[in-house]
C-alpha cells in the first residue's frame, strides 16, 4: 500500500521504521550493550541487530537453518577484506567499526577511504581515529573508486564491502575491479530509506522499494555479477566516532541544559542501531558467506523507538533530565530536515493552526534565560542573541512556550 510522498496525510506514516523477518541470535551478546560513555542506563535496553537465521525471504519461515556459535567460526579461515568507505555522512562509521571487528577476529583489513588523506573531511570522526585501525593491524589508504585498480594495483582480496556508493555509477568501478581480480564475496551497504512508504509497517526485506533509489540498481548488478553477494539496509546508527549527528545532537542539548526541540508529536517511530551491531552482522557475513549469499538484510534493531523516547534515552544515558519541546516546522517556517537529525519525520500539521508567536525563550528555574529554541540556533548550538539581548527582548513580554501539536 504505497502512499504518495507528496500527500501530507501520508507523509507522517511514511518510512518510520523497518524490522527484519529474522529473529536475533543469542550468540551476539557482546555487541548488545550501548556504548554510551555514561553507563547510567539501569534498564536492560539491549540493541541487537536483526539477524539472519535463514538465507532467503523466499524460503518458508518454518525452515530452520541453524548457525554454529560464533566462537567456533573464529577458528576458521581468515579473510583478506577490503572496505571501500565513504568520506562523510552517517555511513562513515560503519567501515570504522567493521574494520576493527574484523581485525579483532584476526582477518586482514584494508580500508580505502574516498578522496585524499589530507582533506578537511579527514579531520572529523571517525577518520580522525583511523590510527586505531592501523594500530590494530589494518591498512588505511585513500583514493577514488574509479581509480581503484591503480590505488590497489596488484592486490587481491577475498571480500569487498562497498560502503560508499549510493548508485551503480559509484559502485560499478569497484564491483568490476573486484570481479576481475577474483574477489569471492561482494557486500554492499544499501539503505532502509529506499523502501516505499507504507501504511503498514514494519518494512521487511522484499517490500517494495523506490524505483528511483540508486541502491536498487546496485543490488541488481551485484546479483548479476557475483555468485556470492549480500546487501545490508541500515536505518540510523549511533556509536562513538559518528560522522553525522545522531545521538550527539541530543547530547549536545541535554548536557547544556537546553530543551530538545522535536518536530511534530514526538511519537514518530524510527529505528536506531549501534554501528557495532551492524559490524557484527557484517563480520558474520564474512565468516559464513554461504548463509549470507544472495540476501538482502535489514540491519536494524529489534525495536523501534519514538523520537521522544530517543531524547529520553539519551538523557538517561547522560544521567541528566531532559525537556522536550514539540513544534510544527511548517508553522515556524523551518526546514525540518536541517533542524533535526532524522528525516521523513515531518509531522502532519495540526488541524488547528497555532496563532501564538514562535519564540520559545523562557526563564529556566535556575534564573538563567534559556536560549531561543528556534531551530537555527539548535543546529549550531549557539544562541542568536546573547543573554542580555534576550533579556531586553523579553522585558515586559509574556514568556511564551511552544504549543504541543
Amino acid at each position, binding site marked *: 500500500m504505497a502512499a504518495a510522498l507528496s500527500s501530507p496525510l501520508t507523509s507522517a506514516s511514511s518510512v*518510520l521504521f523497518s524490522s527484519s523477518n529474522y529473529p536475533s541470535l543469542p550468540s551476539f551478546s557482546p555487541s548488545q550493550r550501548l556504548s554510551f560513555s555514561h553507563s547510567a542506563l539501569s534498564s536492560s535496553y539491549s540493541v541487537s541487530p536483526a539477524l539472519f537465521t535463514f538465507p532467503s525471504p523466499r524460503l518458508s*519461515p*518454518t525452515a530452520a537453518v541453524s548457525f554454529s556459535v560464533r566462537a567456533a567460526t573464529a577458528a576458521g579461515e581468515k579473510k583478506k577484506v577490503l572496505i571501500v568507505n565513504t568520506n562523510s555522512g552517517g555511513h562513515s562509521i560503519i567501515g570504522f567499526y567493521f574494520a576493527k571487528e574484523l581485525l579483532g577476529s584476526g582477518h586482514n583489513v584494508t580500508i580505502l577511504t574516498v578522496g585524499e588523506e589530507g582533506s578537511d573531511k579527514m579531520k572529523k570522526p571517525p577518520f580522525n581515529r583511523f590510527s586505531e585501525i592501523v594500530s590494530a593491524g589494518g591498512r588505511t589508504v585513500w583514493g577514488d573508486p574509479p581509480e581503484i585498480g591503480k590505488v590497489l594495483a596488484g592486490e587481491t582480496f577475498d571480500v569487498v564491502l562497498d560502503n560508499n556508493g549510493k548508485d551503480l555509477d559509484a559502485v560499478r568501478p569497484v564491483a568490476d575491479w573486484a570481479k576481475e581480480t577474483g574477489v569471492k564475496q561482494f557486500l554492499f551497504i544499501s539503505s532502509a530509506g529506499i523502501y516505499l512508504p507504507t*501504511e*503498514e509497517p514494519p518494512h521487511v526485506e522484499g517490500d517494495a522499494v523506490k524505483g528511483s533509489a540508486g541502491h536498487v540498481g546496485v543490488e541488481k548488478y551485484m546479483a548479476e555479477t557475483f555468485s556470492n553477494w549480500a546487501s545490508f539496509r541500515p536505518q540510523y546508527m549511533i556509536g562513538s566516532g559518528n560522522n553525522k549527528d545522531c545521538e550527539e545532537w541530543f547530547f549536545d542539548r541535554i548536557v547544556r541544559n537546553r530543551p530538545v526541540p522535536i518536530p511534530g508529536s514526538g511519537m514518530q*517511530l524510527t529505528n536506531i542501531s549501534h554501528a557495532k551491531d551492524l559490524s557484527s552482522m557484517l563480520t558474520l557475513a564474512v565468516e559464513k558467506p554461504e548463509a549470507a549469499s544472495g540476501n538482502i538484510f535489514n540491519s536494524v534493531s529489534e525495536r*523501534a*523507538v519514538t523520537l521522544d523516547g530517543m531524547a529520553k534515552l539519551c538523557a538517561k544515558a547522560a544521567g541528566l533530565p531532559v525537556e522536550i519541546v514539540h513544534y510544527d516546522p511548517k508553522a515556524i517556517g523551518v526546514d525540518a530536515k536541517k533542524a533535526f537529525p532524522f528525516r521523513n519525520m515531518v509531522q*502532519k500539521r495540526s488541524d488547528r493552526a497555532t496563532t501564538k508567536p514562535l519564540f520559545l525563550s523562557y526563564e529556566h528555574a535556575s534564573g538563567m534565560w534559556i536560549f531561543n529554541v528556534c531551530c537555527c540556533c539548535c543546529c549550531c548550538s549557539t544562541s542568536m542573541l546573547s543573554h542580555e539581548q534576550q533579556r531586553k527582548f523579553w522585558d515586559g513580554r509574556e514568556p511564551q512556550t511552544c504549543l504541543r501539536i
Partner: protein
Amino acid sequence: MARMVSLQQQATHPGFSLLTSSLSDFNGARLHSQLQFKRKMGLQNRGALQVSASNSSKNILIMGGTRFIGIFLSRLLVKEGHQVTLFTRGKAPIAQQLPGESDQDFADFSSKILHLKGDRKDSDFVKTSLSAKGFDVVYDINGREAVEVEPIIEALPNLEQFIYCSSAGVYLKSDLLPHSEVDAVDPKSRHKGKLETESFLESTGVNWTSIRPVYIYGPLNYNPVEEWFFHRLKAGRPIPIPNSGIQMTQLGHDLATAFVTVLGNEKASKEVFNISGEKYVTFDGLARACAKAGGFPEPELVHYNPKEYDFGKKKAFPFRDQHFFASIDKAKHVLGWKPEFDLVEGLTDSYELDFGRGTFRKEADFSTDDIILGKSLVTA
C-alpha cells in the same frame, strides 16, 4: 449433563444463503475459493505441531466460548476430533449458525458441542463440576482474575494443559516498540487481573500457556473495533481521529488458530506468546484499510486534540491513544505459527461476513463525532 440441542437463529443473520454452501470451513471463512485453498494448505502445513494435536482426541473444556474467539476455536477443536465442552451461564446459545457456515457443518458442530452450565464465579460449583468430569485441557477464554482460575486448577490435578487468553494490555507503556514477551509489564494496568492470573498459573506448577492478543477483529467482534469505522464509512461521515493519527497499533484476526497451535505443544509449555497481525498500522492507515475492505471511497479524516473536549463517559475513539503493538516473532519462530490474514484481507472477511450483511453489535452513535466536528467547523 444434557447435551444442548442446536439452535438456529436465522432471523439475526439475514441474507446469508447465497454463498454458504461453498463456505464450509468456518475459521473466518473467505469468500474466494483460491484463498480458501491457501488457508487449508496452511493449516495442514503446521507440521509436527499439528500431528501431536490431532493424534489423540482430548477432553477439552472452554471457559466461555460463545462470544468471539471461542466460537471459532470450539469449531476448530471439534473438527479436529476433540470432545469440547463450553462452560457458560447459558445466556447465549451454545451453538449458533454463523454467517458463511453451511447447514451441514453447523449441524455437525452443534450435535457434538457440549455444555456445562454454571457461573464461574461460583468456585464451589466450578470445583465440583469440573472434578466430576475430569478434563484433559482447559482453555480459559473469558477469565479476568486469578481467583477465578484457582478452583479449576484444584479440580483437575491431572490437567495436561491450561491455555489462557491474557492480553498485551499488560505491557508497560514504552517508547521502545514493539512489545515483546520479555518486556516489562504494568502491575497497575487495567489488565492486572490477567497478569495475576499468569503469575498464579506459574506458581501452581501446572503446564500453562498464555496468549497475549493486541486488538482482535473479525466477524462477530463484540468490541466495536472495525465496526466503529464501518459505521462512519457507511454513513459517509468523516472519521475523527485523536491527535496525529500516526499512533501505531496492530490488529489480529487469527486468534483461534493460534490457540489450536499451542494445544499439546511442548514448546508452548509455560510460555507466553503475543498473538496478533504480522504488520502494524497507524490509526489513519486503519481508517483507510477499513474503507478498502468495505469498498468505500477514501474517507475524510479529521484530527482533533482530545484534551479540548469533554465527552463525558463516552469513548470518542475505540483505541488507546498511544502506540500499542507487539512482536509476534516468538510465536512464529517457536511454534511455527503465522497469521493467515493480512489487514485488508481480514477486514474484508469481517465486512463481508458481518457488517456488510447488516449485522453489528452496537448501534451507530455519532454523538462524540458531532461534538468534535461541530467545534472544528466553528474554529476553522
